[in-house]
């Protein structure tokens, strides 16, 4: 297990008339090497949950353990935690601040108190990993770059810390189709190289169906189910309760099932549906 969460609850503005419960008894074990999607409608607690994973939000009640780091401890080792769990916030390009791309990306590793040389090497590696040319962009202002490039610089700043777990809050929101594809491909690549465990918050059910191993379905601050996409999207009661929309492929498959077509393997990906139908016709 890379991350174990037990009985996690959180209330914003606790003890005031504005108190707002955001999480209620959330429990989950995030496996090392998995690609987990955190899904649910807006306000269901997704962002509050993931911000707990690297202590951007202070634990109020419950337990969280990240590998051997215990967040319930009096003084958890935050520096080591932030080097272990890399967090890419929503619209991270709005958080770029430094005058050059190189300095911006170096901010995280500097906080890890690494030797100067190591920092430089990591910054270069991270910039290249996100698909930008180090020599071309390092001295440029991040503000001159295109939206998609800015987002990649922001991600580079996180992966330069070489986190074992990469957490991203709606990483493709607002991008054009090519930008989306590039970011999803980048996350795949990072998963295979620097950060084997990936947690993404997403409303893009097509992308979740294509890429993720499991989904954690949030509703009203609780986790309703943690399961592979196939077991989530075909669970009618769950989908209704979480007010979620199935990916298009699943909608087509459900419409076929209601017309008497049966499937060996319930499809969630485009090629799965096409393959099932071609095989069926061949029989």
């Amino acid at each position, binding site marked *: 297990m890379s991350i174990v969460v037990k009985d996690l609850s959180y209330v914003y503005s606790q003890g005031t008339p504005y108190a707002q419960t955001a999480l209620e008894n959330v429990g989950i074990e995030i496996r090392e090497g998995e690609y987990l999607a955190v899904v649910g*409608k*807006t306000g269901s607690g997704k962002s509050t949950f993931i911000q707990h994973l690297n202590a951007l939000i202070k634990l109020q009640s419950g337990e969280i353990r990240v590998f051997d780091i215990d967040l319930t401890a009096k003084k958890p080792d935050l520096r080591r935690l932030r080097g272990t769990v890399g967090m890419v916030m929503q619209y991270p390009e709005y958080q770029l601040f430094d005058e050059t791309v190189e300095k911006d990306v170096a901010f995280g590793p500097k906080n890890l108190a690494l030797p100067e040389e190591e920092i430089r090497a990591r910054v270069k590696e991270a910039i290249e990993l996100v698909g930008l040319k180090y020599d071309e962009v390092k001295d440029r202002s991040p503000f001159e770059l295109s939206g998609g490039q800015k987002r990649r610089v922001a991600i580079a700043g996180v992966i330069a810390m070489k986190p074992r777990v990469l957490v991203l809050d709606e990483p493709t*929101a607002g991008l054009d189709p090519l930008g989306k594809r590039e970011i999803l491909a980048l996350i795949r690549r990072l998963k295979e190289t620097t950060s084997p465990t990936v947690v993404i918050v997403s409303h893009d059910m097509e992308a979740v169906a294509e890429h993720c191993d499991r989904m954690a379905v949030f509703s009203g601050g609780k986790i309703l189910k943690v399961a592979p996409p196939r077991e989530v999207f075909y669970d009618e009661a769950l989908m209704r309760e979480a007010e979620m929309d199935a990916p*298009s492929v699943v909608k087509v498959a459900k419409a076929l099932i209601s*017309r008497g077509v049966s499937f060996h393997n319930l499809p969630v990906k485009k090629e799965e549906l096409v393959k099932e139908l071609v095989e069926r016709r061949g029989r």
Partner: protein
Amino acid sequence: MSVRFENVTYEYPGEEKSVVAVKNVSLEIADGSFVCVCGENGSGKSTLAKLMNGLLTPSSGIVTVDGETTSTESESALFAIRSKVGMVFQNPDNQMIASIIEDEIAFGPENLGVPREEIGERIAYALSAVGMEEHRHHTPYKLSGGQKQRIAIAAVLAMRPKILVLDESTAMLDPKGRAEVLAVAEELNAQGITVVLITHFMEEAVRADRVVVMSEGAVVMDGTPEEIFRDREKINRYHLELPVPDYLAAELRKEGFPIPEKIFGEEELAEAICRSL
């Protein structure tokens, strides 16, 4: 005709080099139509939108709204054009100024010099058109993204525009918010308002009468959604993404399934697949 572009080029002046954002575009947007504009980031969509209501004026060529040029010296003529062509942008949080929704909506008509009594009527009309009447006296801060965008649309509607331009107004919303905004746009179009919807979501383009695709400042495709979706080679070249049902239909056709050209949504596709199994 409502908006007409004739050989329009727009160049952003720059210190070192200027950027030609719109290149020799000729285009006519018919009264009452629902037009979708797609294309990669940086292809010139927002510049095109700003040329439609005189926020920008052409470097060369001419843009007319109801026959009046946007390149006018007259303040009052420009004002008339701006109130005819209403714009809603991407970020719902950057568009609110007032702390009470009704004041937010009143802002435009007040600037137009609309009499007090009539402003009240316009607020009521605009809020009911977007289904937000019960929020009239509330603050906008607590609204969801979709609700904020509906208020932004209402603020534009209070100017009684003929044309509504939505520049990626659904991009930052969750699926529910997107559906809300689209439903409002379709309803307004049904009532006769011309809608120009700029979007990356091809599922949204399915509903349009016409899809215009931009690339590097030029219009590179222009046709009905079916005509656009049929051209896989260009869809790939301009980095567009087919709506999933249309993608599946194309893949199944390749495998020899007799799926008709025009497929609208998942149910129709399932129907066609059943007939061919």
